[in-house]
Structure formats: C-alpha cells, structure tokens
C-alpha cells in the first residue's frame, strides 16, 4: 500500500477509536502517546481503559493513551512512524510475547517490565474437563481463553510441545472477556478446556472448590514474562519524560488502579536477566 494511503487509513482508523460513541474527548494537540497492544488479554474494555488512562495522563501533561485491538492496525501505525522517521514522544505498552516478535522488525527497546507482588513472571495453566485426561484427547475440542486466537494457539504449542502442533490446529478457540469466564465455561460444559493464569485457577479453586475439583490440570507453562514498556532505540527527551510518568504510576493511587486494570501492580526497570529472557 502506498505510504500516503496508509497514513490516511491510519488517521481514519484512529478517528474511529477516538470518536466512537461514549468515548473520550480527544486531547487536542497531544503529541505524547502511550500505545497499547496486548493480545494476551481479551481487552474488550477499551472504552474504559482509554477513558481512565486519558483522565490520568492528561492530569499530568499533554499525554494520550492509544489502545489497539488489531495487530494489523498497530503495526501499520508503527510502520508509518518508521517510514516517516518521525521523532514522536511515544512509549509502547506491549505483551512480552508480542514484543519478542516485534523487535525482529522494529528498533524498540524494553525499558520497564510489569510486576505482580514483585514478580515479573506468571505461569499459564491448561485445565480440562475430567474426561480429558491427556493432551491427545484434546483433538477437535473447544478451548476458552481470555487471550486472542494467535496468542492462545502459540502458548498452547509452547505448553503442549511442538509435536502437538497438529492437535492445536484442530482446536476451536473461544475468546472470552476474562479468566474466570474461561474456567466457568469448562465447569458448565460450554468448553472442554481453559487456558488461564495460574493465579486465576488458584483463586477460582478457593472460591468454588467443588467445581474446581472437576478439572484436570493438563499442562503448566514455564515462567512467562509480564507486559513490558518499550521505547524507540533512539528516544526523544519527551519520550524519556513520558517513560518517567509511566514508571511512577504505582506511587499514585489512581495510577496504581490503572495498573491493576492491566492486571499488574507495579513496574520494574528491566535488568540483564529479563533482557536475556526477552531475547529467548
């Protein structure tokens, strides 16, 4: 697609997000943007996320939160910035899983990583109905997950092993709004298995032990990194200022609440270990 048509396409698309009914006043002239793309969660709370983030960010400066729900739109946006060599003040809030793939094509650098109770990783669990006692029996079944299709299938391959790729291709994935929904769906026979975080599985077990006992744990992932905040490899001073705003979120009540909306409770400056994990 020609550069200019890409550009106008993006403008039109941004307009759709920003001017949708019930959404958000556009921050006029905001040129400091926090881009958000996270396929790990079925973020169907864009309206709420944008409204709450914009309120918070605009109280601190001329900042704007720009969430993306489709990878194509997000990457087109990045591509335009690259092609035009724009030196915008921008930070990128991304799932680590996606970031690992993205840096193969775009010169971004992860600066912060999300934390939950001081930890930078979490595990995913594949829980199934009791009749499904092995991964082989998953063939052609339904899986509920709060992540999008691509993410869910990729994590399932990681979890189940490369040799189960064929089984994964036969699965019907139903994206649901959150992990508890995914687990309840299995409990009620709407799906055969659910892919959730370890935390959700354990909280669900504590809330409803009876239903939880009817589930089999089929597989547990290795430690998976939480979302990261990335910046361009050659950041502007404005970008570094914006990064500081994001880094300080957990110190303010409203900022902490926003982090919790993303499923986090803090940020950590990325160290060598995390950098290594992000390259694996």
């Amino acid at each position, binding site marked *: 697609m020609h550069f200019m048509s890409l550009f106008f396409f993006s403008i039109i698309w941004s307009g759709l997000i920003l001017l949708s009914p019930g959404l958000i006043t556009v921050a006029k002239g905001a040129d400091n943007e926090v881009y958000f793309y996270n396929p790990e969660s079925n973020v169907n709370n864009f309206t709420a996320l944008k409204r709450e983030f914009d309120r918070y960010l605009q109280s601190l400066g001329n900042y704007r939160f720009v969430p993306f729900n489709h990878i194509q739109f997000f990457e087109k946006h990045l591509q335009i910035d690259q092609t035009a060599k724009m030196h915008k003040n921008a930070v990128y809030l991304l799932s680590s899983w996606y970031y690992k793939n993205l840096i193969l094509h775009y010169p971004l650098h992860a600066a912060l990583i999300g934390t939950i109770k001081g930890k930078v990783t979490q595990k995913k669990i594949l829980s199934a109905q009791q009749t499904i006692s092995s991964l082989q029996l998953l063939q052609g079944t339904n899986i509920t997950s709060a992540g999008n299709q691509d993410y869910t299938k990729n994590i399932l391959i990681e979890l189940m092993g490369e040799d189960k790729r064929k089984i994964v291709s036969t*699965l*019907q994935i139903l994206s649901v709004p*959150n992990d*508890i929904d995914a687990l309840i769906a299995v409990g009620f026979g709407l799906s055969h298995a659910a892919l959730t975080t370890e935390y959700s599985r354990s909280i669900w077990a504590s809330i409803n032990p009876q239903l939880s006992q009817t589930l089999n744990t089929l597989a547990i992932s290795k430690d998976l990194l939480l979302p990261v905040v990335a910046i361009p490899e050659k950041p502007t001073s404005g970008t570094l200022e914006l990064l500081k705003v994001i880094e300080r979120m957990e110190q303010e009540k409203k900022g902490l*609440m926003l982090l919790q909306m993303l*499923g986090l409770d803090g940020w950590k400056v990325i160290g060598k270990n995390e950098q290594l994990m992000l390259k694996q």
Partner: protein
Amino acid sequence: MIAICSSSFADDHLPRVLILNSSAYIQKYSQVEEEFNLSLSGHTIVEELNIGSKWISEEKIEEKIYDSTPELILCIGSKAYLLAKKFTKNTPLLFILGIHRNRFALTDKTYVIESELSPVSQLTMFRFFFPGLIKVGVLYSKYNQQWFSRAQSSAKEVGIELAGIYIGETASFREGLEALLPKIDALWLISDPIVLTSREQVKAIFRESHVLQKPVFAYDRIFGSFGATLIISADVVTMAKQASQMAFNILANKSTLQKKQIPAGSHIAIHLDKIKQYQLLLNPRALSSVNEYIHNSK
C-alpha cells in the same frame, strides 16, 4: 473471532445461512449480527434480513426464507424466532437474545444461547470482587421461585449465604425490603416483574439500600444510573462468538456441546466511589476483569 476449521465445508458447497434480525436498530442485536457475520464470512454464504422495519410484511419474510434456502437460520430476538419457526419445518434455528425465552416452545431443531448468565457465574464474580462478602439478599416473586432455590445451592458452593424474601403482593414489597436489608451485606437485584414493577419501586430499592449503606448488585447496565455498585451482564460479543461456533458445528453435523448454552462471557461494570463509600473490601486483581467504570452523574 473464533478459530474456524475452514476445511469443514467442501469448496464447491458453501452452506447458506440466513440471519433474521428482529430489529437492527437495537444496538446489541446489530452487534450480534455484525460479529456473527464476520466469523462466518468466507466459510458460508450469509444473507441478512432486518424484520424490524414496519414496511416488511410476513409474506416478504416467508418469501425470503423460501428463496434463500438456508441450511441454518440465526434468529436474533424473539420476533425473528417466532417467524422462522412459523415458516420452516426442518431448518435448524439458532435462537439468541430472546426475551422471556421460556414462554416459547422450542423444537428439536432449535439451538439456544440463553440471555442471562447462570447464578453461579454471578455469585463467583461477587466473591472474586469482594472476598469479604458473606450474606447476599434477593427479593423475588413467583416468577423466580425455581431460580431462587437453584441460586441458593449455587451460593453455598461459593461460600455465600443467600437470603431471600418472597414478594407475594405489591403491598408487601416495602415490608420485604425493610426486613431483608438489615440482615445482608449486599442486595442482588434480579430480573423480576413483581419486584421491579415500576421506576418508583426501583428507586425505592436503591434509596433504602443507600440509607443502610448496602451495595446493590444488578444484572443490567441500566441500573448504573440508579447507583448500582456492581453490574454483571452477559457479554454480547462473546454470545455472538458462541453462536458462530454453534453454527459451524450444526452445519458440519458435529454434535455441539449443548443445544442450550448459557452465555460464556460476562460484562462487568463497577462503581468505585460506591465501593469506597460502603467500605467494601475489593480484590484489586479483579480490576483487570472490569469492562466499564460507573461514575457519579454530575
């Protein structure tokens, strides 16, 4: 979108699907139509008919069903289902967003996605958001007697004590409310035609609950403006995705998991100011499941 095994259908035979929409002017109806269409496009031939317009006669609808020879009809809303049932014999009907669905006879060719979440889904969410919650109260009438006894056993499963007051006559509503509120930690508003008989009655519920600093949990976003603390409703987009998955299984002659399915996704709205005001213990990690924040109207 849902993951689809496109190889289910032969290239030279794309199944025909007709979407009958009771009213394309109702936002959630059109949302379902759009999402369903998106999931099926390329894998089936989809035709759509909005029967909400007063210009469209029953004859036209019958003609359309006859001409399009669908292998499946998605009926959005009760009007669409009743007409599709009237004009078809053996065509499978997938019924979604039915109002008072229990009043309609379902045929063995009918597949349904219920409009309301199960009590256990809602009760689980109550505990997920408010771990300190113990006693929840419900006002119900003869229309929800069965529902209440099911909900009571579900409540036990999640460690909640569900107290109920049966409202027999409109006159006993106020006494019922006054008797229930002091005994509970939160009031759970359910869809009941006797309890929610008028706007004034709804206002009274919220007013009295507020006086005693008791949060109200509701089932529809409409109660946000009345002062609901937590609203859990069925997520319409997820319902449409479920319908698409069911449609593929019906068309591929696969046995679907269940002919009647409850909604698999929840839409959650919370009012943080109310939570603070009533000093409720909120699980901060539940915030990542919130779809909407209710703010005080200015």
